[in-house]
């Protein structure tokens, strides 16, 4: 059992400051991505996680290196929080060969074998059955590992969500399901798409231990993740966290956001995950005067380096186009 991942979190400066830094790091990275998108350096779809950073950062604290992650097409935050280098994620955005998926996947399909990061999956709910399978493999192999599966509340309308809940509960698999409930499936509000809007209750109906968490509060998310992951590692079967959060930007860069008003966004932004933690730390005298400036300085340098790396990296040769459609075979 990995004790490091199940230690109780400490509410002190040493513990909270790195989490604040991790959230700011994701935020600034994505703001840069948005800028690069308008410059047409990044193309295709770009789904920003801005506003939801506490979920990825909090959950990542519950994971051990040998655990697995499956995420969605809004997965930049998860990739960075998991430890995939910012440079390789940025290069992936650029479609460069140095990207974490050799540039093949782009924003929606970040993969990394070293960190057992099994992708951004761009079919809503499509990652859930795979998470069940990864966890099944671990259970059959007798490995005390956790597979974490992130998905939005839109996924719960899909059959694959329900099939996966049932299988995970039926076979008591070591999966942590993390529903990022940001209230909108693209432009479709939860209240016009779900008869039962308490998502965690759906998981409970399958016999899965499930809880709702304030997804804007990284401390709450972290505590819930550590508790859940420890229990999973002890063989208690699947756990489910509904993290209530909010996306401050549009669904993608094409979104004109006709479906919600500015006041609603502003209301949520006032209680955003970074502001919330920063203000709380300030109020409790855990922030020194230069802390945030130092983080911003460090992050700005890292983002600049990541952009330089992506800019200066090569594109994959067109002659490589069809490599890895199939696994290269050694001579038999």
């Amino acid at each position, binding site marked *: 059992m990995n004790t490091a991942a199940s230690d109780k979190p400490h509410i002190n400066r040493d513990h909270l400051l790195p989490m604040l830094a991790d959230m700011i790091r994701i935020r600034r990275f994505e703001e840069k991505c948005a800028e690069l998108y308008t410059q047409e350096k990044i193309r295709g779809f770009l789904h920003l996680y801005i506003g939801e950073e506490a979920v990825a950062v909090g959950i990542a604290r519950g994971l051990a290196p040998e655990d697995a992650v499956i995420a969605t097409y809004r997965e930049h935050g998860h990739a960075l929080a998991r430890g995939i280098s910012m440079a390789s994620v940025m290069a992936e955005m650029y479609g460069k060969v140095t990207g974490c998926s050799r540039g093949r996947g782009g924003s929606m*399909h970040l993969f990394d074998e070293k960190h057992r990061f*099994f992708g951004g999956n761009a079919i809503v709910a499509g990652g859930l059955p*795979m998470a*069940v399978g*990864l966890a099944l493999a671990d259970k059959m192999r007798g490995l005390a590992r956790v597979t974490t599966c992130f998905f939005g509340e839109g996924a719960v309308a899909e059959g694959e969500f329900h*099939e996966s809940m049932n*299988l995970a509960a039926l076979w008591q698999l070591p999966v942590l399901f993390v529903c990022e409930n940001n209230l909108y499936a693209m432009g479709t509000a939860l209240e016009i798409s779900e008869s039962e809007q308490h998502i965690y209750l759906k998981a409970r109906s399958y016999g899965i231990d499930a809880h709702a968490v304030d997804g804007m509060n990284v401390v709450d998310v972290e505590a819930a993740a550590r508790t859940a992951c420890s229990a999973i590692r002890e063989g208690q079967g699947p756990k489910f966290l509904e993290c209530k959060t909010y996306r401050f930007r549009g669904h993608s860069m094409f979104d004109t956001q006709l479906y919600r008003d500015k006041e609603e966004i502003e209301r949520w932004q006032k209680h955003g995950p970074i502001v919330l933690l920063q203000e709380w730390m300030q109020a409790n005298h855990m922030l020194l005067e230069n802390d945030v400036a130092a983080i911003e300085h460090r992050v700005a340098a890292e983002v600049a380096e990541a952009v330089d790396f992506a800019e200066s990296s090569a594109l994959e040769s067109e002659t490589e186009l069809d490599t890895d459609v*199939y696994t290269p075979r050694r001579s038999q």
Partner: protein
Amino acid sequence: MTQGTEITYREAVRESIREALLGDERVFLLGEDVGRYGGCYAVTKGLLQEFGPERIRDTPLSESGFMGAGVGAALGGMRPIVEIMTVNFSLLALDQIVNNAATIRHMSGGQFSVPLVIRMATGAGRQLAAQHSHSFECWYAHVPGLKVLVPGTIEDARFMLGMALLDPDPVIIFEHVMLYNETGILPNEAQPVPMEQAVVRRPGKDVSLITYGGSLGKVLSAASQLAGEGIEAEVLDLRCLRPLDTAAIVQTVARTHRAVVVDEGWRTGSLAGEISAIIMEQAFWQLDAPVARVCSKEVPIPYPHHLEQAALPQIPQILATVRQVLEHA
């Protein structure tokens, strides 16, 4: 005469699964009614008792869910065999097969392979009507990242699964429902032919009959009848629909200069169409006559016996088509 054992196609498939389970502890089978029921076509009967419920894993009716579980388990170091009752049901799992299993290797820049084997029944002939009788092999053969096998003989039923499990990428095996009860001699010294090679089942010089899976028997019968008329038809069993053994297709046409493709799929957008195009592109100057196709009628497969049979490629049609092709001077 070759020494061997007389077994059914069903038993041959079962033996291949048994061998895989005995030989590699990472192998396990999951699917609907594979365990306690013994498999909807009785292929897996007895395996639960021998290997237990962990490795012969009955699933709920969640095709997409357990197919995805197969993909994930393959990514996680296991060697799952996912059984889908029939090809029509596989459409419920299409997302996991096409969007995940087939893409992950390429999309991840070569970081992750999906060593998954999927078995399913296909084809018509049992009066199971329009939601249990179709042949969608062609749909899967369309998708880069997948490999598609169609064992049409007892030997292939016995050995293809083992080869598929050694492959690092997703392989789909289609077992035609009319073959399960077929009986044949499995030679004691049988050597598996590499799974991606087409095989000439009967040599001939006058016309090439190109086919696969459930149509192979009909085509061989037709070839025997033609021999009685002095027509020597060569029968090429494709065995693998993706990748296609293009060289074997071109070679047989180069020998006979005439080709008839027999395919239980619907004609429009069919494998028969793909094979015709390959011949046109790569063996056009070898041809003495246009390529002809015998396919299923373009209707949902109906229930009553006479209509079902009327919808499928039949020996008289194959014979008539061959004669027509041979009329071209």
